[in-house]
């Protein structure tokens, strides 16, 4: 009973957005009913089919940019996080404690105010207005959380396995890649999901760092519908659904791992 109630509360806003997206009107209307009276796919068609003056398909390009950045962020983020987390979990070395502390502390920097320095740094590195530069920023901002989670998971994997492998003549890096990583699959999946989400959902940095319409990610395109004088609610809702669906799909695909991957990380964090 309580569960059904919470589910209803969870679903209500979602249904409301679906209603906005499917209703013919472009504005809000006062009604508690979360189901549309009249169904039209006009808003979806408008968002999906928009093209610029040169006739290029905008949604396709935004989608491609979003996918590129998110995939690159996931790969870079995962590669950096896995190695760092493994070292922090397995080795004792000077700077380890300081490193762990820095990871937690770096979550405390107010992100919105790092915008200006990041801009200046990327410019020095000639990475402005490139999806690569954006992916680099995203992967480093999500890195602390990823390292923290993976390290916790690695801690729960017994060392004996690697030691046995090394005894059998495997190089240490082989033990890491062939033994530990396969065992850490749930945590890797969750980390990948978070890196992907960071990149997929962000718009302030994307709108600031990119100067080329062909590089704009989906959230930037979506943000354009919320204007100075008016919000195009119907299109915004349709766009919001289109942006959210892929992440939801990933969540559902990975939800089994989510519970295991996240918690083991937490237990020893």
């Amino acid at each position: 009973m309580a569960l059904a109630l919470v589910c209803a509360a969870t679903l209500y806003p979602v249904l409301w957005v679906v209603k906005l997206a499917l209703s013919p009107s472009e504005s809000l209307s006062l009604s508690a009913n979360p189901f549309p009276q009249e169904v039209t796919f006009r808003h979806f068609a408008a968002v999906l089919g928009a093209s610029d003056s040169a006739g290029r398909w905008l949604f396709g390009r935004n989608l491609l940019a979003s996918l590129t950045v998110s995939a690159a962020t996931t790969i870079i983020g995962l590669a950096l996080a896995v190695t760092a987390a493994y070292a922090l979990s397995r080795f004792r070395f000077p700077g380890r404690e300081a490193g762990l502390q820095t990871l937690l502390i770096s979550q405390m920097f107010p992100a919105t105010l790092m915008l200006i320095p990041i801009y200046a740094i990327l410019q020095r590195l000639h990475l402005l207005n490139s999806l690569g530069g954006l992916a680099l920023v995203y992967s480093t901002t999500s890195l602390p959380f990823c390292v923290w989670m993976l390290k916790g998971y690695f801690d729960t994997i017994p060392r004996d396995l690697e030691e046995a492998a090394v005894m059998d003549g495997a190089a240490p890096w082989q033990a890491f890649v062939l033994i530990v990583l396969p065992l850490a699959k749930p945590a890797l999946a969750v980390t990948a999901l978070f890196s992907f989400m960071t990149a997929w959902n962000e718009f302030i940095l994307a709108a600031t760092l990119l100067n080329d319409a062909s590089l704009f990610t989906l959230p930037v395109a979506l943000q354009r519908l919320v204007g100075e004088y008016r919000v195009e609610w119907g299109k915004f809702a349709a766009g919001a659904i289109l942006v959210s669906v892929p992440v939801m799909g990933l969540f559902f695909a990975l939800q089994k791992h989510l519970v295991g991957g996240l918690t083991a990380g937490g237990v020893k964090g």
Partner: protein
Amino acid sequence: MTGLLLAVLALGVHAEPLKLWHAYRGGEEASLEKSVALFERESGLKVELLALPYDAFGSKLQAAIPHGAGPDVFIFNHERVRQFARMGIVAAVDERLKREEYFPNTLSALEVDGKTYGFPMSLKCLALYANTALVPKAPKDTAELRALLSKLSSASENRFGLAYESGDFYFHAPFLFGFGGELFDAAGRAVFDTAAMAKSLAFVLGLQQERRIPSEASGALVKALFNEGRAAMVISGPWFAGEIAPSVRYAVHPFPKVSESGLPMRPFLGVEAALVSAKSERPEQAAKLARVLSLGEAAVLRATLGGQVPANVSAYDDARVKKDPLVGAFKAAAATATPMPNTLEMARVWEPMKLALRGVLQGGVSPEKAGALADRRYRALYREKPSAASPWPYAVLLLAGLAFGLYRVFGGPKPAGSFWRRHPEAGRAYAYVAPAAAGILVLVLLPFAFGMGISLYHHEGGVYTFVGLANFVDILASRGYRLAEPLSFYFTLAVTLLWAFSNVALHVLIGLSLALLLKDPLLRMKGFYRVLLIIPWAIPNYITALIWRGMFHRQFGAINGLLQALGLEPVSWFTRFSTAFAANLATNTWLGFPFMMVVSLGALQSIPGELYEAAEVDGASSWQQFRRITLPLLKPALLPAVILGSVWTFNMFNIIYLVSGGEPGGATDILVSEAYRWAFQRNEQYGFAAAYSVLIFATLLAWSALTKRASAGAEEALR
């Protein structure tokens, strides 16, 4: 040979298109695209258009142009021209501008210190829209207006004579000027506490109390009322024409006179202009593009296709423009409009005036006292530049600190054996950590250090002055406002702590309860529920925020719809602290509980079942089992999640900024959103904002140290 090379280079430069940035949409964007195509055909030059989200446009220009990454030409309204000129972002165009081609007041709007920055494209001002079926003849003065309003309004039928966004100063300005109010004194400082201000506020408050105008009207409400014929007149700008339903016949009139003063109600005049970047590599061509966009066919297209009011005088000779009644009406309204000053002072007026207006119309502040209220806020926001300090003591202190740190790490008695001998794993460990460390160093720690440095500076118009700790002193001494006022650091800190605490408590409570419910072995469709309940987590949080903002809408929100369906009074969510805070809290709880639920689920799974079986055998009640087994074993998993969750909530900018926007009067702002306002909405006081950020950081650091000690202490006690 060299000549050939130069020619090739020049060609190469030519091939690169001119960059034009704008934030137009819809018809305005379509007309711009057509004008640009015309320009390309005539000049043979290529132009690359970039349409940006309006919210990001200003800050993006300020970041991009100084770094040479900006556009050659951009379209912006004139309000920020002075600031752009001071920052060296825009170029003066007097040499290429033919003054007689534009209305004089549009040129003066773009003037800074005797120079003109940019080519005026279009005018924006407010006028009176009237439904011709209800208002056949426009009122001449406010006496006529009042008589008309009392005839047209009916509280019982929910009909209003007039509707406009009364809580916004841009819409109140015509009343203020009509009552003879001046916004600035001879020295250029804003004045609020005047008789005209009180009279204009009292007039509008009277209209609201007599139910002649709707209270808390938003753009959406105004539009709906007018289209349904329930508002006979509307105050709005040219953009409103596109929102009117085809069935409604309307006319646009100039404002009436205020009978008491005999003065016309005068709206603000805004000018949109094509501005030339000061950093453009081809200033000649850029200026040519900007000029072409402001004149001739482009101006006509703007009027006919974009529904804008051209600033170009000869555009009105065109037959197509002449027969457009809307453009003609707004041109007439603009003739008496007050050009909005492009000074920094003007930019500082909005926030205090919003406070005063909402105070009078929603918060029970008397019209006579509202001016003083605005004045106090204005003076608090207008920080005098602190006196410059010498950086040397700080540099010496920094060096000493560095030296001490290095000594602590590398100094002291040397233990036997080389470093690598003592730490056999260090080499490999560093190799593994290096890529991540480099990334974090460059893109996380370096920007942060940069921010720390800025907190010691005062920033004004692109110039940084070293002021030492003055920013911190101002914040901590709460200079300019009382401790218990929303602007004070301590007030905001208290709100932030309340915010973080209540959120995390709700997240854990709901998340843990759901996890316990889902753990029930008898529950069917477990997977279905779990999938359903993590949906909020999968939705980007800015989307969640905007959606909930819509749901809490005073007139059209689903929440008030629900309340009404239940027979309750609709609540005006953002006019009181408690309800505005609750709205923020509801939003953030909705999006945050799934994380805690998932963490709790995993933690519950890791508790061995035998423990419960043993407890069962010993006859422990289920409450005792929860208290003695579940809770203690959950703690190690939940604690890190709680610390992390509270840090995230503490800095949860999107929700506060997009849901309540700090309403009422900045009371629901948390530290991060307050810092953002100082940095991006109150004349770019970057140094002050950076000082806020450093204080946020220090607070969180202290908090995490505290929780760590507390949890360590609790663990000791358990042993």
